[in-house]
């Protein structure tokens, strides 16, 4: 039964009121007294040597305050990378320097060369046009294969080649995998591309730097998913500002999807420049700037082989992937094709032998990093496409083939180093079969055919890993940070609570859902709890929100802190009622002594903590505030089964999504309405990847898709209503809420389902096509049908 409060209730979102009335506080809504504006002059070539930057004429333009170039940043650090991957041979990855402003060379279209700070934005832009650049064009490398060839132009002259690392996982599995593939009854091979995407949160990135000479404190307002991470990276590694002299604020943030995790050069620039000119400096990205400076996503080229025995049991998986890093290493870029991708190659299946090889490659393109799903969509796409292909080659039902190979016993240690704590893949498939009405498909296909269309049904069973942890493990894998979360719960004297969480909400609704958890634990109204996030001066520490980790990790920290609050409050209540604290029970916001009618209200205990007239001062400090740091013992493993039905117009190759159903296992759910919304959004983005979106470069490294005129975002007419269900639930076994994470599932689960459906439709019309690379645009589908 749906609940009407606490955990499991679809509370309406309290943050909506400000967003619906235009009173949100996004970074670009902030204007500081005396602020100047910066415009970045960016490279319009993919690769070139900077022989000269003449700013004399520009400096004389009206309103110009100061013009900065790479030379101004020689004394500060470069933009750091937060993850060091070790290659197959035990050597560290090649790690190039990433200057704040380009120095010596430009390495991608959009690389910032100079920054004009002026009284108005228009004046800054005008002056930038008067800067005279002398840039010697160099041959660019865009294609990853070409970038790895001997004699290819080098993106970084001081590295030995364009190879960042050659990674094998698990290296010890390699011989057994090769042997299993040699001796298999059947091997299905598939070459595919996971198309390069751009996250495209609707709010472009913004940064405002400020400096206070009196206190020596710098402040950065920025559109970040993790302000504390920015404070650490920028303060310690770029600008040399200790954390107590640096405040980072991320107020309302208009979507992130990964692209606002990373520390960007513009943040360091604005903080640096504000001190240099002693004025606040504001930068707001245009959309075209976002396209050429936000980290891109995906961009893998893969060959996958799936080996089966004579009974159609999976015996081995071997993959070879080229993963594009772009021109520099973005904050978490090296981890995406490795530990967020290789570790998931078992999927939902008990394949005994798996080996993953990834070569990460530098090219003259924008840096590539995590985008919604980050490595896991790439893993799921390969696996679920090759399984579908194998089912066709073997003439077996694709659902039956999947069910036959499902992992059914937990915990399950995969051959790729992770242990799934719990799951029930047959249960989610059962739910899917029910909600997707597979029984009615034949009739729907017949109706489509009557209308001259082809209809296809595609399935996908994804697994993902959320809340990447524990810190001790990720440290061994190369992370240069811990991956815990913290929360401070402050109870006020009159009983209201404020939670300072290191998680950050940029659309996920934490201000609504986090109080639901505390309300349930204490038995009070959720309206008594307020959430504070996104400001390093208010929240003690935080690792932020990405990888579907907020509730599983941040929520768990909040639960631990609240447990400490309750334990202390029980001691106070015991004192007030002259009882033993072991006998105190907390229910519906009141403390009572077991077996008696004695009781004291939550608010009275809180008041006693702050007005300790009758208080056990010899045993307890006054006050009621607790902090907890929570470091999970494992990832969580949400999983699900998705079904997509498409119609294809054989005359034009146009694909339309007719039905989309998702059956997910997220463990326990705090707010079903919000969880459904997260899945809807993920599916929308996944359909975008499958049918519409492509970040396109020409062979010279020109970015062809740098506006919404050229990059096809999914619109309302491109998608149907979705049917989503998360009733199949196996709660996570190792975090206190039993939650798994739901933010990325839709984006992971949907692309393979869409592509599988299109192939099914085309084959139903007699086509022999077995694969089309995403996006499945009309021209690609039509061309494939003609082959």
């Amino acid at each position, binding site marked *: 039964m749906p609940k009407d409060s606490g955990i499991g209730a679809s509370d309406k979102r309290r943050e909506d009121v400000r967003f619906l009335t235009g009173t949100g506080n996004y970074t670009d809504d902030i*204007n500081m007294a005396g602020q100047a504006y910066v415009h970045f002059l960016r490279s319009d070539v993919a690769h070139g040597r900077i022989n000269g930057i003449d700013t004399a004429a520009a400096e004389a333009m009206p309103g110009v305050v100061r013009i900065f170039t790479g030379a101004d940043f020689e004394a500060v650090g470069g933009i750091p990378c937060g993850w060091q991957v070790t290659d197959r041979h035990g050597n560290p990855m090649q790690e190039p320097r990433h200057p704040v402003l380009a120095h010596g060379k430009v390495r991608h279209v959009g690389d910032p060369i100079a920054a004009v700070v002026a009284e108005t934005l228009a004046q800054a832009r005008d002056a930038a046009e008067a800067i005279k650049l002398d840039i010697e064009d160099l041959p660019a490398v865009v294609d990853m294969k070409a970038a790895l060839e001997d004699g290819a132009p080098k993106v970084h002259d001081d590295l030995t080649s364009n190879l960042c690392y050659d990674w094998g996982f698990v290296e010890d599995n390699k011989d057994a995998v090769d042997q299993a593939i040699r001796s298999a009854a059947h091997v299905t091979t598939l070459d595919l591309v996971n198309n390069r995407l751009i996250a495209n949160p609707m709010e472009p990135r913004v940064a405002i730097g400020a400096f206070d000479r009196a206190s020596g404190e710098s402040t950065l307002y920025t559109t970040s998913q993790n302000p504390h991470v920015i404070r650490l990276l920028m303060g310690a590694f770029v600008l040399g500002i200790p954390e107590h002299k640096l405040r980072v604020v991320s107020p309302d943030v208009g979507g992130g999807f990964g692209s606002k995790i990373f520390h960007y050069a513009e943040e360091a620039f604005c903080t640096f420049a504000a001190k240099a000119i002693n004025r606040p400096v504001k930068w707001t990205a245009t959309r075209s700037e976002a396209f050429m400076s936000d980290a891109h996503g995906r961009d893998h080229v893969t060959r996958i082989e799936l080996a089966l025995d004579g009974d159609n049991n999976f015996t081995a998986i071997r993959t070879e992937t080229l993963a594009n890093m772009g021109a520099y290493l973005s904050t978490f870029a090296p981890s995406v094709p490795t530990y967020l991708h290789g570790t998931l190659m078992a999927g939902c299946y008990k394949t005994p032998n798996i080996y993953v090889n990834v070569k990460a490659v530098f090219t003259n393109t924008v840096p590539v990093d995590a985008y919604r799903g980050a490595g896991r969509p790439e893993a799921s796409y390969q696996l679920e496409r090759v399984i579908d292909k194998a089912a066709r080659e073997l003439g077996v039902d694709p659902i039956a083939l999947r069910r036959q190979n499902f992992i059914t016993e937990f915990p399950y240690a995969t051959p790729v180093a992770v242990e799934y704590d719990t799951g029930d893949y047959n249960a989610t498939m059962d739910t899917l079969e029910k909600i997707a009405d597979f029984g009615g498909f034949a009739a729907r296909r017949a109706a489509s055919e009557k209308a001259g269309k082809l209809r296809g049904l595609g399935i996908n069973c994804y697994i993902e890993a959320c809340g990447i942890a524990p810190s001790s493990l990720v440290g061994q894998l190369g992370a240069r940070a811990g991956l815990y979360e913290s929360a401070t719960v402050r109870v006020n004297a009159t009983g209201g609570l404020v939670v300072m969480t290191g998680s950050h909400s940029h659309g996920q609704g934490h201000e609504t859902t986090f109080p639901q958890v505390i309300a349930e634990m204490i038995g009070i109204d959720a309206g008594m709890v307020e959430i504070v996030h996104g400001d390093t001066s208010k929240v003690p520490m935080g690792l932020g929100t990405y990888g579907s980790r907020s509730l599983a990790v941040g929520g768990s920290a909040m639960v631990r802190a609240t447990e400490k609050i309750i334990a202390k409050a029980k001691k106070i209540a015991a004192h007030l009622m002259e009882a033993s604290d072991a006998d105190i029970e907390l229910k519906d916001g009141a403390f009572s002594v077991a077996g008696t009618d004695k009781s004291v209200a939550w608010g009275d205990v809180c008041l006693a903590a702050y007005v300790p007239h009758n208080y056990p001062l010899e045993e307890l400090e006054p006050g009621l505030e607790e902090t907890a740091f929570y470091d999970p013992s494992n990832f969580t493993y949400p999983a699900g089964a998705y079904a997509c039905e498409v119609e294809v117009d054989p005359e034009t190759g146009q694909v339309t999504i007719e039905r989309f159903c998702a059956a997910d296992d997220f463990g326990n759910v705090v707010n079903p309405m919000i969880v459904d919304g997260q899945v*809807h*959004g*993920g599916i929308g983005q996944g359909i975008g990847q499958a049918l519409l979106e492509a970040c396109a470069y020409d062979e010279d490294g020109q970015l062809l898709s740098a506006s919404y005129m050229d990059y096809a975002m999914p619109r309302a007419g491109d998608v149907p*209503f979705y049917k*989503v269900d998360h009733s199949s639930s196996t709660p996570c076994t190792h975090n206190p809420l039993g939650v798994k994470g739901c933010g990325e599932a839709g984006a992971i689960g949907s692309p393979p389902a869409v592509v599988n459906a299109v192939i099914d439709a085309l084959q139903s019309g007699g086509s022999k096509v077995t694969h089309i690379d995403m996006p499945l645009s009309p021209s690609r589908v039509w061309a494939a049908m003609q082959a």
Partner: protein
Amino acid sequence: MIQVKMTVNGKEKSGEVEGRTLLASFLRDTLGLTGTHVGCDTGQCGACTVHVDGVAVKSCNMLAAEADGASVDTIEGQAAPDGTLNAIQQAFQDHHGLQCGFCTPGMVMSAAALLKDNPRPSEAEIRFHLSGNICRCTGYHNIVKAIMAASGQDVSAIAAE
């Protein structure tokens, strides 16, 4: 500089603008009405949608000087003076039609323009009408549902709350 005057959410407003100043910039930077958002530079995303003389307009594609003398309505003027949300705003909250909130002002203003002309639009009409408003968070499901609900249609049969 050009002197412009317009009625914004029922109040007389004036200011000095450059010829190239966009209406979106005038609303945000001169009048401080930051509810109107700028999400792209090409008139594609619709986050900046406002009403000019009752017609939905992308304010990043109109010069402030062009709106001289016009009546402009923005998201800030949609709720009642006491803060009560209007029917569209309330339906967006009831049906979770927003997540990060950045596209939301444009969605609400665009939906208002649709319902003025077409008080009971079909799902297909709503999806077609929203072709000039991009949302990256919701997959549009709950936006379409909210607009149907705001127009008094029963949405209980639409899959998944």
